[in-house]
């Protein structure tokens, strides 16, 4: 399985061409405003774009958008919430699995009973990652996933990602943290003015 991107472009960024094999992480760094988040949104099919994106040789254009987004999960820098309480964003049948993931990411179980407004930015980032992983995507697109976390929590999140990558998960990681890009990335690219270049 692999993620293949060919001539992907929008009016604001691109064209992008790259390939990420199963179980690997592509780390993308670059200055703010260079187009990193735009690239992730295009991969997630949230913004109109041209070009070809395929997963395991299956063209995105041939899949329904809901099928594609179940396979390719985006975690934006600011996580989105639509109900008042944290547990309203999770299926109750997944309580055990979400609890295990929460402990792996150093989160307390009681967080699930709290209003979203009473959680910190770092807690919300990890909760959103748990929510995405529970849908068992084949690709995760991470936009600064540990920007609000301390060093210990950051390493815990990275350990969870590494574990999932061993099971075949493809990760596209956007980060300003060069050390994190080195730790997680199997391949690295730099975004400059809307195009990807080798570092």
């Amino acid at each position: 399985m692999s993620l293949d991107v060919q001539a992907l472009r929008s009016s604001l960024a691109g064209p992008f061409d790259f390939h990420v094999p199963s179980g690997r992480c592509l780390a993308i760094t670059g200055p703010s405003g260079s187009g990193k988040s735009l690239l992730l949104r295009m991969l997630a099919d949230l913004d109109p774009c041209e070009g070809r994106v395929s997963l395991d040789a299956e063209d995105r254009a041939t899949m329904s958008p809901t099928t594609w987004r179940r396979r390719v999960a985006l975690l934006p820098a600011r996580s989105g919430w639509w109900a008042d309480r944290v547990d309203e964003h999770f299926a109750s049948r997944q309580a055990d699995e979400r609890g295990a993931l929460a402990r792996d990411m150093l989160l307390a179980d009681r967080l699930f009973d709290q209003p979203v407004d009473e959680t910190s930015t770092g807690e919300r980032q990890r909760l959103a990652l748990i929510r995405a992983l529970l849908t068992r995507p084949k690709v995760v697109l991470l936009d600064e996933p540990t920007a609000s976390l301390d060093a210990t929590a950051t390493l815990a999140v990275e350990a969870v990602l590494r574990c999932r990558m061993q099971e075949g998960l493809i990760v596209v990681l956007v980060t300003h943290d060069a050390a994190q890009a080195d730790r997680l990335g199997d391949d690295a690219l730099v975004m400059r003015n809307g195009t990807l270049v080798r570092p």
Partner: protein
Amino acid sequence: MTPLSLHTADIAWAGILLLIDGALSVWLRLRFHRALAIATLRMVLQLVAVGYLLRYVFAGHSPWLTAAILLAMSLVAVREVAVRPSRRLRGGNARVALPNVVGVVLLTTAFALMTAIRPEPWYDPRYAIPLVGILLGSILNAGSIALSGVLDNVTLRREGIEAQLMLGRSFREATAPLVTRAVRSAMVPVINQMAAAGVITLPGTMTGQMLAGADPVNAVKYQILLLILLAGSSCLTAVGTAFLAISHLTDERQRLRLDRLR
């Protein structure tokens, strides 16, 4: 009971209240007397003009003149619904307001005239025009609240909507909380109106009929019919407006297209 007819001098007595309001404004420096005077003058001129116009139309029974007046009233309501939200769809909010306001008012009016009221002819302006006037007030409220509820809040809810899309939910599922909130808000005025009718307030139509000499029980029957029509038309407008508005903000790949909003 014969209705007590009002003369100009009788109305002038009520005008004393407005003079007192104006005097209070001047005395307490509240500075609303000018606005009050202009509003009073406008109200009198508008109502006198519409009274003479309706007398002429009612006497004629012309379906074309009736249709022209109803169309003009509906278009003014469309404009009011379209301009109320602070955000605009590309191509204008009338794309949503026009089919909903005109469609619902035509449907509800024709339904009421052909089933419950049954005047002869069915388009008798004496019934059709006041009915449309009352319905448009409610439709305008419901439509503008529903449209604002969607267009003014969708940007605030963007992260939540896209988070749901990213979990593989359809655009309809992801925007359901937003649409539901908009429709529920739009239904509040008419639900309050029905709940308060007869207990907290005596509705205008019923009061007007009783002042004109009608039997209270007959007046109540008309009022019940009107409130049912108002609730029905408000609901149709709110649902139609909210769903049509959100449908303009997506595409064939079920993305949230905020670039279609100005």
